[in-house]
């Protein structure tokens, strides 16, 4: 019993000191990390990228940190795709990759190698607007127009996905695309028009 107790005490001391050491490590590691971060300034990595955007092949060099959104807007000047949050919370940057709706702000540019990207600029067929673009004009599905390209890209996907059986369903499947002007009436109406 006594032995067991002393063993327990030793065990207790050992384990607590170990735990104490553990508790000490994180701030030190954090400090170390911060120090390293401050000292080691990595050079940027530029990578080659081959991607098809709006049926046109691009061979570009992209910073490994560049998102698809910034590649489109800053490097290729395809500014129709909008930055509303850069965090995947608003849907303004929605594009299609291989036919699926995708948030371009959460997609690194280098991940799109070999993929087919469609942006709002690639939706119309020459001088003929896509039916969804046409519907957004007729139903006044926007005000300031900033979320509109993302809304339209999502709306096209929403129809393709078949999520248009009711107003409630359209609203649910379009709720990843925020509109601060609150032009939701016209957005729903536009989708209904195209879905029929």
């Amino acid at each position: 019993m006594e032995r067991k107790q002393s063993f327990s005490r030793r065990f207790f001391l050992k384990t607590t000191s170990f735990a104490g050491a553990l508790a000490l490590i994180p701030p030190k590691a954090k400090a170390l990390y911060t120090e390293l971060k401050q000292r080691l300034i990595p050079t940027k990595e530029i990578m080659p990228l081959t991607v098809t955007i709006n049926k046109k092949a691009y061979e570009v060099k992209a910073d490994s940190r560049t998102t698809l959104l910034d590649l489109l807007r800053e490097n290729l000047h395809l500014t129709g795709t909008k930055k509303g949050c850069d965090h995947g919370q608003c849907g303004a940057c929605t594009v299609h990759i291989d036919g699926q709706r995708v948030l371009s702000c959460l997609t690194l540019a280098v991940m799109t190698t070999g993929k087919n990207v469609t942006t709002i600029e690639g939706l119309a067929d020459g001088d003929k607007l896509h039916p969804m673009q046409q519907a957004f004009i007729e139903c006044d599905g926007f005000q300031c127009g900033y979320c509109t390209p993302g809304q339209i890209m999502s709306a096209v996907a929403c129809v393709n996905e078949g999520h248009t059986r009711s107003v409630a369903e359209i609203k649910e499947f379009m709720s990843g695309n925020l509109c601060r002007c609150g032009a939701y009436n016209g957005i729903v109406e536009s989708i209904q028009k195209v879905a029929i």
Partner: protein
Amino acid sequence: MGFFDDTISLSAPPEGRVEATAKVTGSGKYSAEYEVASLCHAVLVGSTIPAGIIKSINVGNARQVEGVIDVITHLNRPMVPAFADEAKIKEARFGLPVFHTDKIYFKGQPIAMVIAETLEDATYAASLITAEYAADQFNVDFEKSYKNAELKTAGKDRGTADSWAETPSVVEAEYTIKNEVHNPMEMHATIAHWTAENELKMFDKNQGVNNVQRMFAKLYNIPAEKIHVVSEFVGGGFGSGLRVWPHCLAAVIGAKAVKRPVKLVLTRPQMFTLVGYRPESWQKVKIGADNSGKFTGILHQARHATCVYDNFNEGITRIARLVYNFANLRTESATVPLNLSMPTWMRGPGDCTGDFAIESAIDELSYKLNIDPVQLRLQNLALEKDPDSGKKWSTNFVDECIKLAAEKIQWQNRKAAIGAISDGDWKTGYGMAVGMWNAGRSNASAGIKMLKDGSITVQTAMTDIGTGTGTAMQNIAKDATGISKEKIRIELGNSNLPPAPSQGGSTGLSSISGAVAAAVNALKMKLAGFAAAENDTYKNVVGADIILSDNGISYKTTNQQFVPYSVIWEKNNLQVLEVEASSAPGDERKQLAFCSSAAHFCMVKVNTKTGKIKIEKMVCAADGGTIVNEKAAANQISGAVVGGIGMALMEEQLIDPKLGTAIGNDLAGYHFAVNADAPIVEVIFVNKPDVNSNPSGSKGLGEVGIIGAAAAIANAIYNAIGKRLRDLPITPDKVLMG
């Protein structure tokens, strides 16, 4: 490229806004989207404490990052002349003297700015900047502080407080609303470019290019015409673009420092601290009525937050003085300075906040009196004259708004008894409220350029933040000239165009419609002057006698005394005929009072087990005088109602009182209404002209769509479950615990 998209010519353009094609194809350029040669990117670094002094800033590591051009702080920035010393800074009335002070007033205050070749370089370098501070005590806790702010009389008393002390029915309660943030979808952005020593060009997101121009003229002491501001496409404002903010000046300072054009786009988290918000507020409303339901008096007290480095008072009690007849009235207000960033006007500023309290109180009174809330309002509305100024209303159709909306939602289905409409855990309730706004008008100018083929370009410096200004200008020009729509182009949002006021406070259309009408008249008279050489009829005419068409000028009726434009152009060797004219409100504003109004009706379902609130129906009937463009006007109103849903149920900028900072500062942490949060909003217009308001007969609609919406929802929740919820937003926890 203009506000029209000339680059895409459609085979069959659909009927819509003038800039619609540019918006649905992505070709319209918002401020961060212009291509400018040798552009570099700026990223702001914010302070990590809410109050104190900067002791040192470590920028060494940031400077080593590949691609970094410069790092700007208060220690090395090129001086802004208007910030030369403390006295001048005060005089400039700019608010935060960015990079010209070592004092910290709020957490997130810009203390440094990295300028680099790419956004990625600048963002990474900015993450390496650290600072040491001498921290001060701070206070960001409105709830704990508001009682200390002494209330002062806001406006003239009416009657006396004693006279209604013995009134049979009185309700008295306190109301609170949390900070709300504009969060337009486009983040504020500026491209600043010093094109010569003292010449500045800016692509900037704002709601008034001339305002930005004037501010920079003052800050740099250079003539306004040397500053060119372009804001053609503006991705929403809601009031956040009515001021010139520190980031905008930061970009200009940066461009001066690196002698290159600089682009600065705020991040979404920075949108919560650098471009204003609707400040947190406390209110107390006491309303009394006699047994017949006639209001006997009101006491309205309000306090709201402000910052410590500037003052802002949004006038919450103004609305108490506007809508109803109160023989006895007293309004009091105070502001509460906190170590937070500067609040500003947000859609329906002041009135939206005040209206929630008053319309909730009236609803409460209706239950006490056992009078239908619709009836109670109708019998107390001040329909003849503005109770505050005593001036006769030019037009006031708020009663019609109430009746129209009541009919639309089928108010007769409402049960006065609480929770009478029930389906398991779901209780259905009906509520209503009204909103009103002073319908203002300002001086504005417009220009017209005409070509030989009869096509015209109508121009103004005014922005179109999504309200449909450009389309309204086209409609007004079409009606006033007779020239067909296809031949009318619009140019706007550019300080090189005829000057116009900022687009705010629902005055945009009212101001610009007068200017367009004046410009059309000037065009007619100028054409008549040329036509007089061909036909004596035009020697002595007034604008009203002249009719224009796509091809020429006529007298009184189409094709009478017709003179083709081609003849005028050829004989006078003209290329472009240009006119410019301005208009301003006149004596009518001295004699009459002007208001826009709206009635909000709402049907909600409330789940008594989960606290979930579903808005089943939302109807808004509005009086905006003549409706110039019904589609855009209805969109504007329904959008504002959606804003009201956010205000009522979800919008809340959380503040951590210990850390002294805004938290949840992104669109996952701050919720406004998404598509599924709103029903299809039904909008009705009274659509009767206010001939005194301006030549188009319209009155502004931007604000009234939100004023009253939150109260209607709260009142419907009461009708459903019998809980009077006076603290916005009404989240499920409050429904369950309240």
